[in-house]
């Protein structure tokens, strides 16, 4: 029975995501009706529509979807590796590392008039660099660990470095001028903002590589629901699998946050929603999680830019606004079924 239903559910999710993407592409300061969006998408629309769709809206829509997928996958993998359903990618220190990169960038490249001396586009590179440096720091510490490589130790290093990074960000924001603080705050809350196709390409490439790896070794992800000793006895090299999935989590998180900032709750809540509507032991759980992550950030970003125009709200504020109560509801519901 579930063998027929599961693919249908995945197809339904994909359809949801596609419809939302088309609607989101139409919405904005110059709203396009659906027929003009689809015409432009298939290359039959007017030249102006094509510019709006292909240059302005679609890259942003695609980036939101892909970043959502990356964060959601990172969350699902981390929850499996730690065997902890409330683990979120932000505990690995990657997000805070990216934040240090962004705030340092705003600090270094702001002039006396509080304006940026270089294109804001470089902010993404700064975020990626920050994420990379912190990922490398965590990796070096883990490799030097006298107790040997273990996921728990890696997470502890991540948490410690994240605390250090948070302190650095706070200090830089307080000591810096207001412009810097405001700009940094938007990033820290998470926001998709204007996007270029090559940003989309970067995240897409990362996701494709991650997907290929997961297709090859995906069965191990499921096996990790067992305690490590039992999983090992069924034939999994548990230590190696944990390290591989942690590395994937780091890369996916770094990719996503360098593009859309520290969007909260998606990595935590997308796997929970997937569990609820698809089941975490059903085939396609990771695919479902990824699509839900895409829907969440795309939905949040679309609302963020259409709720109070011309002001753009940070998408991360909306994911937290919806995500936090949803998470509380899930927690309460869980207690009722197991209590």
């Amino acid at each position: 029975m579930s063998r027929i239903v599961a693919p249908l559910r995945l197809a339904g999710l994909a359809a949801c995501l596609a419809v939302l993407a088309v609607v989101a592409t139409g919405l904005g300061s110059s709203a396009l009706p659906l027929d003009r969006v689809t015409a432009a998408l298939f290359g039959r629309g007017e030249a102006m529509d094509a510019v709006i769709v292909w240059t302005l809206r679609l890259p942003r829509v695609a980036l939101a979807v892909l970043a959502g997928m990356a964060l959601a996958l990172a969350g699902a993998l981390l929850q499996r590796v730690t065997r902890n359903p409330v683990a979120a990618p932000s505990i690995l220190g990657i997000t805070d590392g990216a934040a240090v990169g962004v705030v340092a960038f705003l600090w270094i490249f702001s002039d006396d008039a509080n304006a940026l001396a270089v294109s804001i586009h470089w902010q993404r590179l700064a975020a990626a660099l920050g994420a990379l440096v912190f990922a490398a720091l965590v990796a070096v510490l883990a490799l030097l660990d006298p107790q040997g490589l273990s996921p728990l130790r890696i997470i502890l290093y991540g948490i410690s470095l994240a605390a250090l990074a948070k302190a650095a960000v706070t200090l830089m924001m307080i000591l810096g001028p207001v412009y810097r603080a405001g700009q940094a705050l938007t990033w820290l809350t998470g926001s998709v903002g204007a996007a270029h196709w090559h940003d989309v390409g970067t995240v897409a490439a990362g996701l494709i590589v991650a997907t290929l790896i997961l297709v090859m070794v995906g069965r191990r992800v499921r096996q990790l629901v067992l305690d490590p000793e039992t999983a090992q006895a069924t034939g999994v090299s548990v230590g190696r699998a944990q390290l591989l999935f942690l590395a994937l989590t780091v890369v996916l998180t770094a990719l996503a946050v360098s593009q859309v900032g520290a969007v909260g709750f998606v990595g935590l809540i997308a796997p929970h929603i997937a569990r609820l509507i698809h089941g975490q032991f059903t085939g396609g759980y990771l695919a479902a999680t990824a699509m839900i992550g895409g829907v969440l950030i795309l939905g949040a970003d679309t609302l963020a830019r259409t709720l109070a125009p011309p002001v753009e709200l940070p998408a991360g504020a909306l994911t937290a606004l919806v995500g936090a109560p949803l998470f509380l509801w899930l927690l309460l519901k869980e207690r009722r079924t197991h209590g």
Partner: protein
Amino acid sequence: MAEALTRLRNVTARYDGVTALETVDLNLPKGLITAFCGPNGSGKSTALRVMRGLHVPSMGTVEVAGRPLGDWMPRELAKSVAMLSQSPDAPPELTVQDLVRLGRFAHQRGFRGQRAEDRIACERALAATEMTHLAERPIGRLSGGQLQRAWIAMTIAQDAPNIFLDEPTNHLDVSHAFEVLELVKRLNRSEGRSFVLVLHDLNMAMRYADHIVLFDEAHVEAAGPTRTVLTERRISEVFGIGCKLIDIEGQDVPTVVLLPGQ
């Protein structure tokens, strides 16, 4: 002596500096039901974990089926030796059926789904443990005995010729404990699978084991056929408690009666 299932040579194993096994030499025969007995902390579980490659000894060598443990690929080893540890754990919402399927990991390749042979192995494991009617139930809603049988079903589904069970009768009432050991006996006698069990109950060991390894303070006190190892004198010495073996009419093995204060 029969062909060896595993061989420990001069094995010392430690946890955080505490020695759990000290220079142990052990040959386990193939095709039998072997029971590890001994007081708490005497090294039984550690020996089992070392034999399955779950704990790396600080000294000595371990062989499984004549090959050093390090030569085995993880999946290959899992196909040869299945093991159920003392307190296995999985999320409570996992169904019995899904749990049992996880036992098939070593047999599955690439991204193909469940094949017919996987399904058959799972169905047989469920039937053998009398869990078929509970296949769809989440393991969080099973009784202690049912849960233990679900885990044993997962271990059996792994289809390994050698099965290690660490205290399989834990959490089970007397009748369920006998059921599990009857199942072990059936799988041993009809399918020729070797079993190594950690057992606390000496009467269960006496009744079901062909071969006993008696552990005491990180050493092997005695190893051999059940009746030659489990003697009144040895049991008294190892457990520090008086013991009589009493023949009861109609029972083919003597009953172990422990006599505290003697």
